[in-house]
């Protein structure tokens, strides 16, 4: 019985095969010819011509931001955490402002805070914890509170670094969807503002806050430096 292709490939690659297979191939013209053909095929694959790569250097260098290139020096780390800290302090300050206007303070059903707060560096954790918006907002916030939250989240968005020149399509689509959602609510609040009753208006403002909160999360995650996981 002739050797199988798998056995012939093992022989071609100088890996051990059963002694009887080796003996058969040595004495079988057909098998030796097929063995040679597999070797020729491999050599033919290896000598297939390459084509010149397109010059994509400009696109690549645009995607790789200087901040990501820069070595992780202490100065850079401080600058990075300073940005995060500034965003967090801004959120905390605005939260305190809102808190001062509140009569009832509970902490049960507010939507999750923006990542900017959750990722506060340890050095600032005490400061932020004292003014954590999660614990300072009421369970069913009124319209005025929701308006203030919207303003606070918009301030956080403005504090985040500018988006990269070239972005991930998936992230961009998510951000565009969220921004469109906010724009649609703004349109309704502007055009239908007088016709909306308190409940409808409150619902729209709540949705606006939720969308802005998601937007802050996505933008914040996008602004994080990439970390290679081998």
């Amino acid at each position, binding site marked *: 019985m002739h050797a199988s*292709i*798998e056995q012939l490939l093992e022989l071609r690659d100088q890996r051990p095969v059963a002694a009887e297979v080796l003996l058969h191939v040595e004495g079988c013209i057909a098998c030796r010819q097929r063995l040679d053909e597999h070797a020729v095929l491999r050599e033919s694959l290896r000598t297939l011509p390459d084509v010149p790569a397109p010059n994509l250097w400009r696109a690549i260098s645009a995607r*790789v931001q200087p901040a990501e290139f820069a070595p992780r020096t202490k100065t850079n780390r401080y600058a990075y955490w300073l940005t995060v800290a500034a965003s967090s302090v801004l959120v905390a300050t605005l939260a305190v402002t809102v808190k001062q206007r509140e009569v009832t303070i509970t902490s049960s059903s507010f939507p999750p805070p923006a990542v900017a707060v959750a990722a506060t560096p340890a050095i600032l954790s005490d400061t932020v914890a004292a003014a954590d918006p999660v614990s300072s907002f009421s369970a069913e916030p009124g319209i005025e509170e929701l308006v203030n939250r919207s303003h606070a989240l918009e301030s956080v968005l403005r504090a985040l670094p500018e988006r990269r020149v070239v972005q991930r399509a998936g992230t961009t689509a998510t951000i565009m969807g969220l921004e469109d959602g906010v724009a649609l609510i703004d349109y309704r609040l502007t055009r239908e503002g007088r016709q909306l009753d308190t409940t409808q208006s409150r619902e729209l403002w709540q949705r606006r806050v939720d969308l802005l909160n998601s937007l802050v999360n996505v933008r914040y995650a996008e602004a994080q430096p990439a970390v290679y996981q081998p």
Partner: protein
Amino acid sequence: MPRFSDLEVDEKTLTAARDGDPRAREGIYRSFSGPVYNLARRLLGGQAQAEEVLQDTFVEVLTNLHAYRGEAPFAFWIRRITVNKCLMTLRSPWHSRRSSLELEEDPPLGGEVHSHEGYSTCRMVDQVALERALAGLSDTSRLVVWLHDVEGYTHGEIADLLGRTASYSKSRLARAHARLQALLDNESVTEPCMQVSNNC
């Protein structure tokens, strides 16, 4: 064009690139863009996808130079990132031809193994025909045959990449060879070498 195994980057260039020297970074791109692009083109079978992998690979390489610790040659580190990017593309639902490597099989070719009539070692395989035959393989078979026969991956390494066993890789390689030879024979795409009369 040089292959990955032919290329190496000196420590000075690497350090400069890590420190943000634009010339060093571009030098790395110029040196490795050819092998990266051609490997991606072979594994993916498409120019547009290969260009995407070329971009994604260098963005990852250049933003993670600090992660390269010199445990393997720099060229092999880049090659590993390239292969991973190709696999991600092949596994992506956006991949135009098939959605999953797991389900992918080569289309049947009647009696492809045993109807093979063979060609002499004195005959060179026509490159255009071989390109066409490669394109006729399934994504997985093409990946296995190229990584094993050209890039020198072991069956164990291929198995790790695909999340399968070494036996699976061996079996895939055998089937890929059978199909390549059948495609080459069926289309009469080999041509005699120039020394037929003297050597055969």
